[in-house]
Each structure stands twice: as structure tokens, then as C-alpha cells.
């Protein structure tokens, strides 16, 4: 079962005594071939888990960087089918790194929820984050993913009180994604000391590892978050690296992977000398 890959990865990192570095990239950004090269290089550059965005025309929770990444990908013909092909290609070279798809509900409704859960599992996808599908609307999706053995990753946020948290973590598996700031991706910055008590609260309520994202751009910030959470997610800064490389006529893959390396290094050394979290 593919959700085991997520559990195995977090168990191994716990034994190592460090947090995970999660890299978010957009499928097909800037084009399918480059995205495949970036994906294949992510584990070597230090990504412990990968979030692969599938582009949607109306990404209501994204800030400008990921909006632009989606537009680049769509302009170059990326589709949900193409995203699954990227996942399948990635699995040919990597069997251990968890791969989480992240995107919006309409493409899944169009594909068919059950068929998609099956096809995603078959492509080697381990988990799914659907930004605009809160627990109230997620029962059919949760059923389909359960049947296919894919984790439904839920989002907890600064607006989630204890009662709401109970609703959120019901039927979640793999890990919980803590949205560290009220806002869209890549705009506000997460403060580790503000985030820490929330992470502890979510971890206690769910019994699952907690990944923190939405406000981490620099290695310093990633390290600070890695000291208080089980994983630090960086997305907007990586898709911005795609844009920067294109602007400066540099090699896109190289620039993205080099940014991943520096972020991963910061996360890996964050707890050196620390005992436990």
C-alpha cells in the first residue's frame, strides 16, 4: 500500500532525530520535460517528501508565485493526466520518496473521484491534498482514497480551534499539514515560536507527524520551523526559482535543485546538538 511509504519515511526520520524537508513543485512548470528532470533530481538534492501541484485555472488559495507557476504549466499544455504521467516516471527511478499530489477539486470531479483515486495509486502517488475540499465535502473522496490506499492529507490552520481540529483529523492519515499563516501561499512569513504551540496541539490531537507550510521561503526560516515541526514545506520559493532561472536564461533544473539543496541542508542541520523536540 502506497500510504506506507509516508509512514516509513517519517519513522526513519524520527529515528534519525530530524525533521523532513518537503519540496513543492508544480507539474509541468515550466514544461513537462523540465518538470520531470526536476522531480527526478529532488531526492538527491535532499527532498524527503515531494508535493507535486497539478495546475488549475482558478487556484483560490495560492499567492502570485504559485498562480504564475500554474499559468506557465497550463500554457505549456500540462494536464492532470500529464501530472500522473510525471508521477509514474518518477517512480521508475525512486521507490522510497513519498509523493503527494496537491491541487483543486474541479479536476478530480471531472476525472471521477473513484477512478482518480485508483489511477493515482497506480501511478505511485501516496497522498492527496485538495485545497478546496474541507472535511464537510470530503467523505466521497476519503472513501475512494481509502479503497485505493492513498492518504488524504488534511489541512489545519490558525483558525482551527480544538473542536474544529477534531473534525479535521478524522479520517486523515500520513501526516497533517499545518498552514502556518492565515493567508495564501507565499506571502506572509511563519514565525517558529508562534507556530510551535499549534504544531504541538495538532500532533497531540492527531497522533500524526505535522508538516508546516505556507510561510517558509529561506533556509533560516526552514531550519527554525524544522526545530519545532516534523516537516517544513517550501513551495513558492521553489517555483520562483523556476521563474528567476527563465528570466536570467539559466538552467531551470539546476537553479531549483540548488535551492532545494540549501533548504534541505538547513533542515538537516537544524536539530544538531538538540536532544528531542
Amino acid at each position, binding site marked *: 500500500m502506497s500510504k506506507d511509504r509516508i509512514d516509513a519515511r517519517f519513522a526513519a526520520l524520527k529515528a534519525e532525530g530530524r525533521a523532513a524537508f518537503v519540496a513543492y513543485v508544480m507539474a509541468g512548470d515550466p514544461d513537462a520535460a523540465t518538470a520531470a528532470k526536476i522531480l527526478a533530481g529532488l531526492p538527491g538534492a535532499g527532498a524527503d517528501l515531494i508535493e507535486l501541484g497539478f495546475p*488549475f*485555472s*482558478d*487556484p*483560490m*488559495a495560492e*499567492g*502570485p508565485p504559485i*498562480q504564475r507557476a500554474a*499559468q506557465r504549466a*497550463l500554457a505549456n499544455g500540462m*494536464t*492532470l*493526466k500529464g501530472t500522473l504521467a510525471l508521477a509514474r516516471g518518477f517512480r521508475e527511478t525512486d521507490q522510497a520518496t513519498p509523493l503527494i499530489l496537491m491541487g*483543486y*477539486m*474541479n*479536476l478530480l*470531479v*471531472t*476525472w471521477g473521484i473513484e477512478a482518480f483515486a485508483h489511477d493515482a495509486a497506480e501511478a505511485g502517488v501516496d497522498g492527496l491534498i485538495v*485545497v*478546496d*475540499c*474541507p472535511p*464537510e*465535502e470530503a467523505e466521497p473522496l476519503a472513501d475512494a482514497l481509502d479503497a485505493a490506499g492513498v492518504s488524504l492529507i*488534511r*489541512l*489545519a*490552520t*490558525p*483558525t*482551527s*480551534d480544538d473542536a*474544529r481540529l477534531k473534525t*479535521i483529523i478524522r479520517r486523515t492519515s500520513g501526516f497533517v499539514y499545518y*498552514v502556518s499563516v*492565515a*493567508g*495564501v501561499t507565499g*506571502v*506572509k512569513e511563519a514565525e517558529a515560536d508562534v507556530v510551535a504551540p499549534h504544531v504541538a496541539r495538532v500532533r497531540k490531537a492527531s497522533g500524526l507527524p505535522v508538516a508546516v507550510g505556507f510561510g517558509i521561503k529561506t533556509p533560516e526560516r526552514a531550519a527554525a520551523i524544522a526545530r519545532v515541526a516534523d516537516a517544513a514545506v517550501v513551495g513558492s520559493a521553489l517555483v520562483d526559482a523556476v521563474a528567476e532561472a527563465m528570466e536570467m536564461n539559466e538552467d531551470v533544473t539546476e537553479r531549483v535543485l540548488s535551492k532545494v539543496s540549501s533548504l534541505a541542508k538547513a533542515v538537516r542541520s537544524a536539530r544538531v546538538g538538540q536532544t528531542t523536540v
Partner: protein
Amino acid sequence: MNASHPSSPTRPNDYTAYPDANGRFGDYGGRYVPETLMPLVHELDAAYRAAKADEGFQAELGGFLKHYVGRPSPLYFAERLTAHFGGAKVYLKREELNHTGAHKINNCMGQILLAMRMGKTRIIAETGAGQHGVATATVCARFGLPCIVYMGAVDVERQKPNVFRMNLLGAEVRPVTSGSATLKDAMNEALRDWVTNVEDTYYLIGSAAGPHPYPEMVRDFQAVIGVESRAQILEMEGRLPDAVVACVGGGSNAIGLFHPFLNDEGVKIIGVEASGHGMGTDKHAAAINGGRPGVLHGNKTYLIQDPEGQITEAHSISAGLDYPGIGPEHAWLHDVGRATYLTATDDEALEAFQLCSRLEGIIPALESSHALARLPEITKDLGKDGIVVLNLSGRGDKDVATVAAHLGREA
């Protein structure tokens, strides 16, 4: 022109009993928003339910609707249009006589009172043509609340007078350049603002769309149109009409007229979507006639989209109908067969615009002109003994320049 009914769910005994507790009209509606917004959506739902049941709130709203908006609006027998078509008697519900010139203010007045009741201190809204933006800016001015209106950069450019009106009323208009820079993108940007400013901000949605409870709440605030029409036609004709007709973009004026008639089985319910350059082209805004169900902006409904589910651009000569979705209650009324959704093209709307101006001395909004454009067939089908009530949802002063340009004239 008449869309077929793809599925035939069981027809309910009480059409007014929807949405259910989960915000569903059959399979449509719901609350498809990011988790950060879910507690706010629940808070809004609870606050709205309390206000709805509060006689004090209703009395306050009624007072503002009477003295500030100018309600009730007249139901007017359009004698010369009736004679021109030679069929059923045509009555026009004169929403264009409201303050700010359209039905939009009914909803804005209800929501601004609710926002203040909830202690919110900052109002945001989206707008396409600027009509909802102007109505929102108006109530914000009246109650002294800061107002930010998101408007597609393309629309800012083509609706300059409305941008200036909003500025005069003290609102800040933020041009939206993301995506296609039109109404759907303005709505995305308003949602992004809301998710960022969760403490103090009230999102005043202008159409009967968005996450639950918006479709229900906007409908309830607009239902004053149908409630008045029903009482007025009973007084004037001693019976209910044979049909009620309205244009449908997101569908707030239409659902406002339709809702009080839903359980009157003898009353035909007819919505008219904008088919732009024609249903055979990709330039239309007819979500039911030319789209299929999907999820956007917090609800499941009919959407104009490509085969994969990417939302595509809507087109209509009328900016108020230029939206790729439709309110979820319309989607449901279509599926269960209670309402019929026809279409009218840009050219047909332009014809009706001129006809109504010439024969009745009423310049209708281009939006409302789409409903007027289907009157020849509707009045003929109902015959001389029939009665039809059409929602004249807005006045056309704002459209004079657009129409002149299409007719090759200077306004």
C-alpha cells in the same frame, strides 16, 4: 434553445425547503473553500440564521428597504410591449427604480446589516461590470465602513464610469490582473483577501453563488422581489401569473423573483442565460446550456469549462452576465425540471434593449434585455389569456455607450 434535463431526480414536495443543513440543493452547492475559511463560513451561517429569526433585524432591514432603497418597486403593466407581441399580458417588475438602479442593493443592504451585527469592520466585494461594487460601496458609505472592491483589470478598463462612482462613494477599487483579469478572477482575489484577513473582514458576495450560506442568504435577501410581485399580481389580476421570467448570470435577481413562486405548480419558471455570439461558438456565458457540473468558488454547480475541468472564459455583451458559473439553486431547479433555462444572444439582447426603450420609455439594462428577448415566444405560447411577470432587474443608463458602439453610433 431549451436545455434538456440530463437527470431526473425525484421532484420534491416542497421546493422551498432547500438548501439542506449542509448547504445542498440536491447535489449542488456545498462549502468548497480552504480550511482556513471553514470556521468563518460556519460563523456566518450561525449569525445569518440568528438574524433571519430576529424580528428586530428584519424590521430594521425593512425600514432601510423602504426609505433608502425605495421599496416596494412597482409592478407595471407593459401595455405597448403586450400589444406589440400580441400574446400574454406582460408585467415588468421595476427593480431598475431602486436606489443605484438595480436589484443588487437589496442583497447589499441585508448583508451590510448582518456584517455590522457580527462586529465586522472591513468590507470586501467582487464586481464584474461594477453594479454590485457600486451597490456595496453605497451601503458602506451609508454605514461608514471601509470598502475594498476587487475588479478584473479588463473590467476596470471597460467600466470606467462605475470605477469612478465607487471612488466617489469612498471605496477602493483594486484591479485584478491574475488569470483572465475578469469577474471570476476578481472573485478569486476577494477569497484570497478573506483568507488573509480572517479577523475583521466581511466578504459581501453579490450573487446567489459561493459557499453555503451565501446562495441561500443572497436568495433570501433578493426574495423580496418575488414576494412583492406575487402580492402585486394577485391584487392587479386576482390570480397568479402563468410564467415568471428573469435573466440569469450568477442568478440573484432570478432566484429572488422565482423563489416565492416555486411551490405554485401552475407558474412556469423561466431563466434566460446569455449565449453571447451563439451556443455554437465558444463565446457565451450559458453555464447550464453550455456547461457541465463542477466545483468553483465554493460551490458545486454548472460551469463553463474545458474537457479536463479548467474554467474557461465566459462572454456576454452584458458584463453582469459574463460569469462562467451559475448559482447552485438554479442548477438544481434545472435538473429537477422545475425551471427552464433558455438563452438569448448579444444581438437579440440589443434588439430587445431598443424595443423596450422605444415602446415603453424604459431603457433596460443589457442583462434584463436578455430576458426581454425571449418574450416573443413566451407571450405567444401562453396566448392572449396568459400573464407573464418579467424582472426588469436594472436600468440601462450604464449600457448606453456599449449599445451605441455596437450600433456604430456615438453615445
